[in-house]
């Protein structure tokens, strides 16, 4: 690697490094199909955005044509599985130092196979400077976009599409980042962009924003004045100096003016009365570190104060900070946060964004892609392809950084379906899906990370086994293992890398990584087999239920739901049993269940409720394939239908573990309907509706649900929500408050979690909640 950054060209750091070799597997991925480029060139970093399509293998299920055949024939799977190629859209963002710009442009030119793209949207201060280079290298016309418009478009986009995008900085806590639940309505907000100067913009809607003020004292002042005072040329080095200095040697504090009396006067003696007030003398030398620190405080405090004044004047309490002054620097986030807290007396929160550095590139891209209407889709951060947030203090010498560290990636998948809040959430703005914040809870974090590490071998084995005909399955599975293992290690050290760390995010990351290496549905065969077995038992189970008296039946139905839930490949304790003892049956599962009273037991209240009038419409989130959905959920659904309650059965849009997918549920329902007149007529009369959640996660985020499902829920006036399974009812939504009655059921299939909740393995959660009137 060349002596790039260290060549001393100074502040702008734009000496070009041509010798870098880029690893195409890691950066600039999927470049072959890339179309639509946008570039944001800042003072030291370049952000490149492109839109590309990714070919994915997906497992499709298809019902056999049963006409003229006996569906109950032995050894015959209930449906067929085929692996197909599917094309999905993905946004790629790559951030690198300006020194690499030429090497990167060359790389793109060499790898860009077929593109009809003629234009590249460019923004940022450096766009003008590199215009010729870009046009020459890529033979694309550079279309300059307004910096601030791009920033705001980008900001709106990440706030809408990336949960936990915003965070507050808390000094002295571990970790220092506390992620915020995105407000369902992101507007209005204040964006304070601290570049060389400061721009304060009020954003009111997607397209309406207003520059309400600014300040010339910004990052350029810190850098310029800092360079003069300390003879240190680089911004990062200045910050590094500042982090080691003591401003009290340079600043005049309240206690310097008041002496010790500040205490009795109720003044904080440490407040700065006059920045650089002590340096008004010719006979003292001041250290570089101290001056840099004093300068940092002076500028941060000033910006914070102005931001508070503007926020107050415009009655805004959400203030996002961005710009190179902030960008990933804990030092400046800390001083800005302090200043905001001080000047607003806690009324305003300083918010930072995980993808702040990408806003301009995202915005420029969106401007260029307007005819594709990217805003009408929902997008999701791909954990497998994104590098996540770093918190290392600025490296004083960039040339010592590892090559990988010089590039930062963000990939976002276009989701098939737009996602919205479940209309039944009591308070969407305070809804937090996850039960335990592993970023916060170090003990739980340690446990779960180890748990996922230990389970990795099994997942790899399962992935290989799921593609017996594939020659490279083992190789891909090994790559998957490496990728996910690395993610887990990253999360051990930087639990905040992808927002709040939760069991859900660990599970989702695993799914993303599996997809990345073309293991779209490792459990498809297992699910197929289990569905087949369970379907065969359906009628027997129904008959035995029907033989029971009403009260007995209600309990049996609930026990069935719970027993079905024991069949879960996601839980290690269970997958071990399932692996070693395939005969592990429904009845066996029932015996494993804890006897009443359960760990959480509001069954009596539920039974009482059932004696009352039927619910209008129940929304049920299904969990596992096989026994769970067929012998647990469907009999329960059947009972509800018989009571006159309509049922919306919501299943995942895409595969995750052995969770039943929407397409599987369609087939299963069809097969059950063939056996059961109640289900049959309900389906026909649309009293039973099968819907998809829009998600491919073993957990459930009620703030990101399929729009069609949400509309139907509203239309049908759902007044009961049933959430089953550990992933959906314990790891997530355990504390979710709804506007209607809800039932959360799960069997705790993890001894650590059971212990934490004060129970034992296979303890039962039966949580029936009625909202307060």
């Amino acid at each position, binding site marked *: 690697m060349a002596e790039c950054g260290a060549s001393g060209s*100074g*502040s*702008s750091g734009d000496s070009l490094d041509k010798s870098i070799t880029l690893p195409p597997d890691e950066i600039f991925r999927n470049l072959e199909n890339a179309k639509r480029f946008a570039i944001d060139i800042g*003072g030291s970093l370049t952000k490149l955005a492109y839109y590309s399509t990714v070919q994915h293998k997906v497992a499709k299920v298809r019902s056999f044509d049963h006409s003229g055949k006996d569906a109950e024939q032995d050894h015959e799977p209930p449906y067929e599985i085929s692996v197909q190629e599917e094309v999905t859209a993905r946004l790629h963002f790559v951030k690198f130092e300006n020194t690499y710009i030429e090497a990167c442009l060359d790389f793109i030119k060499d790898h860009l196979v077929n593109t009809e793209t003629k234009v590249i949207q460019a923004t940022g*201060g450096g766009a003008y400077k590199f215009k010729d280079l870009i046009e020459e290298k890529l033979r694309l016309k550079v279309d300059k976009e*307004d910096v*601030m*418009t791009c920033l705001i478009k980008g900001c709106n986009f990440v706030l809408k599409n990336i949960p936990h995008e915003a965070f507050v900085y808390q000094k002295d806590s571990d970790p220092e980042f506390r992620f915020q639940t995105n407000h369902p309505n992101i507007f209005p907000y204040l964006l304070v962009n601290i*570049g*060389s*100067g400061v*721009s304060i913009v009020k954003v009111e809607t997607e397209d309406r924003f207003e*520059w309400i*003020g600014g*300040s*010339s*004292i*910004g*990052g*350029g*002042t810190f*850098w*310029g*004045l800092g*360079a*003069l*005072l300390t003879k240190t*040329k680089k911004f990062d080095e200045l910050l590094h100096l500042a982090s080691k200095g003591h401003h009290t040697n*340079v*600043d*005049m504090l*309240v206690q310097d*003016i*008041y*002496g010790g*009396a500040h205490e009795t*006067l109720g003044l904080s003696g440490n*407040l*700065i*009365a*006059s*920045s*650089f*007030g002590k*340096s*008004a*003398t*010719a006979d003292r030398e*001041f250290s570089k570190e101290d*001056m840099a620190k004093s300068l940092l405080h*002076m500028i941060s*405090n*000033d910006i914070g*104060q*102005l931001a508070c*004044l*503007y926020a*107050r*004047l415009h009655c805004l309490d959400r203030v996002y900070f961005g710009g190179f002054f902030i960008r990933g620097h804990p030092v400046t986030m800390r001083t800005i946060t302090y200043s905001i807290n001080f*000047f607003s007396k806690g009324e305003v929160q300083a918010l930072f964004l995980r993808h702040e550095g990408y806003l301009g590139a995202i915005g420029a891209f969106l401007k260029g892609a307007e005819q594709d209407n990217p805003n009408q889709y929902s997008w999701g951060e791909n954990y497998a392809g994104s590098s996540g947030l770093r918190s290392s203090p600025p490296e004083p010498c960039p040339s010592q950084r590892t090559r990988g560290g010089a590039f930062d990636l963000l990939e976002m998948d276009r989701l098939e379906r737009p996602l919205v809040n479940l209309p039944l959430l009591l308070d969407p703005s305070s809804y937090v899906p996850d039960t335990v914040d592993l970023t916060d809870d170090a003990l739980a974090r340690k446990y779960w990370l180890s748990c996922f590490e230990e389970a990795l071998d099994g997942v790899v084995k399962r992935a290989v086994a799921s593609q017996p005909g594939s020659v490279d399955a083992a190789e891909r599975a090994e790559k998957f293992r490496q990728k996910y293992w690395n993610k887990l290690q990253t999360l051990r050290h930087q639990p905040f890398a992808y927002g709040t760390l939760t069991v859900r995010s660990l599970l989702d990351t695993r799914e993303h990584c599996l997809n990345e290496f073309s293991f779209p549905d490792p459990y498809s065969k297992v699910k197929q087999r289990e569905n087949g077995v369970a379907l065969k038992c359906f009628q027997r189970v129904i008959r035995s239920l029907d033989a029971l008296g009403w009260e007995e039946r209600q309990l049996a139905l609930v026990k069935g739901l719970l027993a079905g839930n024991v069949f879960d490949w996601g839980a290690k304790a269970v997958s071990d049993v399932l692996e070693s003892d395939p005969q592990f049956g429904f009845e066996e599962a029932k015996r494993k269940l804890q006897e009443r009273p359960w760990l959480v037991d509001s069954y009596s209240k539920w039974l009482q409720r059932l004696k009352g009038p039927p619910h209008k419409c129940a929304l049920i989130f299904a969990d596992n394939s096989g026994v769970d959905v067929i012998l647990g959920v469907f009999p329960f659904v059947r009972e509800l239908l018989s009571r006159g309650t309509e049922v919306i059965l919501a299943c995942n849009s895409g595969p995750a573990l052995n969770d039943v997918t929407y397409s599987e549920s369609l087939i299963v329902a069809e097969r059950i309907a063939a056996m059961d007149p109640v289900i049959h007529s309900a389906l026909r009369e649309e009293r039973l509706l099968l819907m998809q959640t829009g998600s491919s996660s073993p957990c459930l985020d009620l703030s990101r649900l399929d729009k069609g499902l949400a509309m139907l829920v509203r239309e049908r006036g759902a007044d009961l929500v049933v959430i089953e399974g550990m992933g959906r009812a314990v790891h997530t939504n355990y504390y979710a408050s709804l506007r209607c009655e809800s039932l959360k059921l799960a069997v705790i299939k993890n001894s650590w979690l059971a212990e934490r909740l004060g129970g034992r393995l296979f303890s039962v959660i039966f949580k029936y909640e009625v909202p307060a009137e």
Partner: protein
Amino acid sequence: MGTTLCWLGRRSHILCWRQKDVAKACRLISWRREWRHPRKMLLNQLEAVAAIPARYDDNVDLRGGRADAQSWMNFRAFPWFGMDIGGTLVKLVYFEPKDITAEEEQEEVENLKSIRKYLTSNTAYGKTGIRDVHLELKNLTMCGRKGNLHFIRFPSCAMHRFIQMGSEKNFSSLHTTLCATGGGAFKFEEDFRMIADLQLHKLDELDCLIQGLLYVDSVGFNGKPECYYFENPTNPELCQKKPYCLDNPYPMLLVNMGSGVSILAVYSKDNYKRVTGTSLGGGTFLGLCCLLTGCETFEEALEMAAKGDSTNVDKLVKDIYGGDYERFGLQGSAVASSFGNMMSKEKRDSISKEDLARATLVTITNNIGSIARMCALNENIDRVVFVGNFLRINMVSMKLLAYAMDFWSKGQLKALFLEHEGYFGAVGALLELFKMTDDQ
């Protein structure tokens, strides 16, 4: 009762005093040795009471009887000082009585006389003390005495020498009370007591600032108005200083620029609040200038600033956008980033110390203007009064502030200035001397 003292309510009072009872009244009052002329003094006191505007009545709580007469007769012995000990400068106002009778002069203790002579016959004291002769308020009547008010300043770092001098000159023998405000009143209280045997009467600096300002404005500047503004602030050729009548001053935003800056919203003489403050003030200007240019004094720094060009140092909007940034309605000549050009080594090597001094001055001034303007908007006040020693001999900053208030508010805000810039706290402290009761 020999003394007839009738109070009709707290606000208005009628004094009835029979001449022949004066001597008797004086005997009732505890004798203090410096009160050589009780009779004359009492008459002065009567005059003073009549002259005191109604606003001071609240603090004079006299309800008849001997003890009250004593309080009321609480004449303050000379010398009369008011002191404001700030972070950088000590501001001292001294009232020089000009109505001393020969008899009085004869009786005057030597110490007192020498202080008076020393202060009034010099314009500089020691190496760093300076009397702002041009600010002297002549023929002022204060507390019944006629005289001149002198304005003296010296650096706060000379405070210990000052206290030492007080000790050497046996200042404590004068049995005077030293009214002091500013942070230093607290910081140096102990030293005053231990070294010079002087008890400081400590006063709140914001109270003093406002009372002092209102007082000086009410007495005027030797017949001229105290307050002024700049006409045509956005046009350098037509911009000129004009008197402003501050008779009806409320509400006003008061921006006090010393080492740091305090911003107050003042709604009436005793209803005000501190809105905010900033640590980027006069101390920052001087501190940074010293570091950047090696200068040593405020005067030197300002002199350099007057010659420099800040646009070499600052990055302007046009440096980034090539012209105006129309999307946001920003002029090309607006500063986008203070010291922004200094990010580049070539530019760092090509600027002068004068440019740096100017850029520092412009940066600090504009920032104060910006914060003040936001406060004015938030508090819904359209008059912004700038005071404090940062403005001393600093026409550049005053015009910049006048420009900034006018330009950014589209003429809605008016920047006002006062001749006695930094001395109001000290004047306020002196006024407190007249309000004191003995037990204070």
